[in-house]
C-alpha cells in the first residue's frame, strides 16, 4: 500500500502544488479544487479503519504521504485530517471525508453534553468543517466540534499558514467518545509532533534538492558555486541532517504502526532531530541561494519558512529534548542503551521535574 500511496501522492502534488498556488493560499485562498481531489482520492480518510469508512492504512504506510505534503509545502490540512480520522477510528467513530482541524492545546471544558472554551493553534481553523480535540484529564473524551458554531480569531505561523483560535460557547459535539485503552490524552500533541517531523523531512529534502541544483547552475567568480569547497561542505552537512531527519521520522511512524498508541520516545527523537536539522539546513540553503531565495516568488523560502514554523509547533526543540533528557536521567545511565535499542522508554517519567 505504501508504494501506491507514495507514487499517487507525489504525482498529485507535483502536478498541482505550484509556488503560485502556495502564494495565493498565503494571501487567503482556500484551494477547494485541490482539496476535492484529495477527498476523491481517499487520502483524507486513509488512516481510519475500513469498517468506519477509511482505508485502514498504518502510519508506516502514511509516512511517505505526510513527507510529500512537506516536500511540496501543501497548503492544506491533510496531515491533520489524517491524524483526526485515525483518532476517530481508534475511538470507534465514523471517518469524515472533509478538512478537519486538530487542537492539541485548548481551554475546553465539558459541561453536561456541551463544551465551552478555546482551541488554540488550529491549522486552517477558518476553513475546516470540524475540529477534533480531547477534553478532560481524568476520563478524557474525544470530541468533534462543528466549525460553524465557533468564533474564529485568525492567526498565522511564520509561513503564513492559518493557526487560528476557535472559541466555542456551550456547543454540542457532533460526535464524541471516550479514549480507548492505550490512547494517550496527549495523542493530538504526540501525533502533531510526529506529523511535523515527517513534513520537515520532506521540506528538508526539497531544500537540499533546490540548493544542489542551484549550486550546479549558478556561476560566480567564473565557476559554478558547486565547485567551491565551502559550498560543497555546506551541502554535505545539509545532506547529513536531511538523512537523519528522514530516518528518525520514519522510525516514529513505523513504531506507531497500526496501534492506538503512538511512540513518544521515537516521536521526541524525530522532533528534536527535525528542529535541529531545520536550524542547520535552512540557513545553509539560504546562504547557497543568496538574495534570490529571499524573493516572495521563490520556492525556497516557502519551504524554509514552513520549516521554521513547524519546528515550534507541537513542542519546540527544548520541549522534546527535555522530555527525553528527563526520562533518561530519571532512569539513570543504565536505562539509555536499552531504550535506544528498543526504541522505547516511558517518557511520562520525564514529567517529574
Amino acid at each position, binding site marked *: 500500500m505504501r508504494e501506491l500511496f507514495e507514487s499517487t501522492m507525489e504525482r498529485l502534488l507535483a502536478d498541482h502544488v505550484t509556488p503560485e498556488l502556495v502564494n495565493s493560499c498565503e494571501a487567503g485562498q482556500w484551494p477547494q479544487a485541490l482539496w476535492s481531489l484529495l477527498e476523491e482520492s481517499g487520502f483524507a480518510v486513509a488512516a481510519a479503519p475500513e469498517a468506519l469508512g477509511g482505508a485502514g492504512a498504518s502510519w508506516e504506510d502514511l509516512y511517505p504521504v505526510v513527507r510529500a505534503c512537506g516536500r511540496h509545502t501543501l497548503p492544506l490540512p491533510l496531515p491533520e485530517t489524517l491524524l483526526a480520522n485515525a483518532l476517530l477510528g481508534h475511538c470507534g467513530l465514523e471517518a469524515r471525508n472533509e478538512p478537519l482541524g486538530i487542537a492539541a492545546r485548548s481551554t475546553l471544558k465539558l459541561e453536561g453534553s456541551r463544551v465551552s472554551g478555546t482551541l488554540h493553534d488550529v491549522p486552517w481553523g477558518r476553513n475546516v468543517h470540524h475540529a477534533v480535540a480531547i477534553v478532560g484529564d481524568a476520563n478524557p473524551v474525544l470530541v468533534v466540534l462543528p466549525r460553524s458554531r465557533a468564533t474564529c480569531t485568525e492567526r498565522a*505561523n*511564520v509561513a503564513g499558514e492559518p493557526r487560528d483560535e476557535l472559541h466555542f460557547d456551550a456547543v454540542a459535539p457532533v460526535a464524541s467518545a471516550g479514549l480507548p485503552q492505550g490512547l494517550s490524552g496527549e495523542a493530538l500533541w504526540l501525533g502533531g509532533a510526529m506529523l511535523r517531523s515527517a513534513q520537515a523531512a520532506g521540506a528538508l529534502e526539497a531544500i537540499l534538492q533546490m540548493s544542489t541544483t542551484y549550486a550546479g547552475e549558478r556561476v*560566480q*567568480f567564473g565557476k559554478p558555486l558547486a565547485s567551491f569547497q565551502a559550498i560543497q561542505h555546506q551541502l554535505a552537512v545539509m545532506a547529513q541532517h536531511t538523512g537523519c531527519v528522514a530516518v528518525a521520522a520514519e522510525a516514529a511512524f513505523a513504531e506507531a504502526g497500526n496501534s492506538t498508541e503512538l511512540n513518544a520516545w521515537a516521536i521526541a527523537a524525530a522532533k528534536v532531530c527535525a528542529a535541529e536539522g531545520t536550524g542547520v539546513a535552512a540557513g545553509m540553503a539560504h546562504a547557497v541561494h543568496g538574495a534570490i531565495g529571499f*524573493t516572495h516568488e521563490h520556492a525556497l*523560502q516557502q519551504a524554509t*519558512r514552513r520549516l*521554521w514554523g513547524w519546528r*515550534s509547533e507541537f513542542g519546540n526543540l*527544548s520541549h522534546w529534548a527535555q522530555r527525553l533528557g528527563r526520562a533518561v536521567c530519571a532512569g539513570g545511565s543504565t536505562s539509555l542503551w536499552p531504550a535506544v535499542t528498543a526504541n522505547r522508554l516511558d517518557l511520562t517519567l520525564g514529567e517529574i521535574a
Partner: protein
Amino acid sequence: MTAIAFRHHHIPAEAQALREQVRTFLAEALKERPPLRSADSWMGADPAFSRELGRRGWLGMALPRRYGGHEAGPWARYVVIEELLAAGAPVSAHWIADRQSGPLILRYGSEAQREKYLPGICRGETYFCIGMSEPNSGSDLASIRTRAVRSTDAKGGWVLNGQKIWTTNAHYSQYMIALVRTGDKTAARHEGMSQFIIDLQAPGVTVRPIRDLAGGEHFNEVFFDNVHLDQDTLVGAEGQGWEQVTAELAFERSGPERFLSSIALLHTLIDACGRRPDALQAKEIGRLVARLVGLRQMSLSVTAELAAGANPALAASCVKDLGTAFEQEIPELAQAVLDEPPVVGGGSDHAQVLAALMQMAPSFSLRGGTREILRGIIARGLGLR
C-alpha cells in the same frame, strides 16, 4: 601574531557625554513604538525622524562644518549610532547616506559634489542607495555589466545602460551611487570601473520593488535605459571605481550595525523568559550577552584603528563574520529555549518579533560581503592566500 591585534579601547569621555542626550531623546521619541517595529531598525524608514536627527546634529557628524557637518570625530559618531541601533530607531531612510555616501563623497567627490549633496545628507533630507549587485553577479562584483559610455552629443557626460538588483531603499532614495563599467570590454575584471551619482528621478531610470519572503518591499531592481549622466556625476577618478569601493567596504564591516540587527529579539526574549529564567534560558541569554560584550569590544578596537588612519580589513571582517553569526544565532536560540511559536498577525510581542527576525536573519550574511568573501579576506590577512 600582529595580524589580528584587537586592543581594548575606552570611548573618550567627551563622546560618552553624548550618550545620555541621545538616550533621553530616544526614550521620548520612540516611546509609542511597538517592539515589532523596533525589530526593523535598518529597514524602517521615517524621514521625519531622520530630519529630527539632522536638526540635533547627529547626522554627518564626522563631516566638515562647511558642508553642514559637525567634525565630531569617530567616537561621538559611534556612540550615536550604537544608541540608535540598540533602541531600534528607524534609521533606514538616512542610513546609507550618512554612513557610506557622505564619507565617500567627502573623500573622492569634487568640491561641487560636496556642496551639492553633503548639506542635505547632514539635514537628514537627502537619501542614497548603493548600486552594486546585478543579475548573475552576486558577490562577484568584478563581473558587473552595467556600462556608461561617453556621450557623443553636445551635452557631454555619459550614457548609462544596464540593470542593478537587490538595491536596498532605491524606492525612496533620491540618488544612487553605482559601480559601473566605463573601460573597454577587454579590460581585466577589476579594471575600467567607475562610480557615478545617479539621480533616480532622471528619465530612463525605472525602479521596481522586489517583494521579499516576509511580504515586505525593501529591495529593488533598478533599470537604466539610455540614462544621461552629466560630467560631474562621476565620483573620484574614472577607472578607479573598484579601488574606491574596496576601501568603502572595509568601513562597512565593523560598525555596531554588524552585530545589533537582532537586538530587539534579545530584548523580547529576556522579558518573555521573565525575572527568573530557568537554567537553559539563563545560560543561553548569558552566552549571547557575553558575545555581545566581546563583539562590541572588537568593534571599538577596529574603530580606533580606523580613527588612527589604519586599514584594518582583516579585523573588520572578523567583526562582521562573527557579528553575523551572533545575529543569526539569536532567533535560533530564542525559538529553542522558550516554547512559544513565532506568530504573524497577533500573539505576544515576542512571538511577532521572533517571526520577523527568523525570516530576516538569513539575509544578514548576504549584505556587506558573504561569509565566503569575508573568510577569504581573513585568510589573506593571515597570509594563507
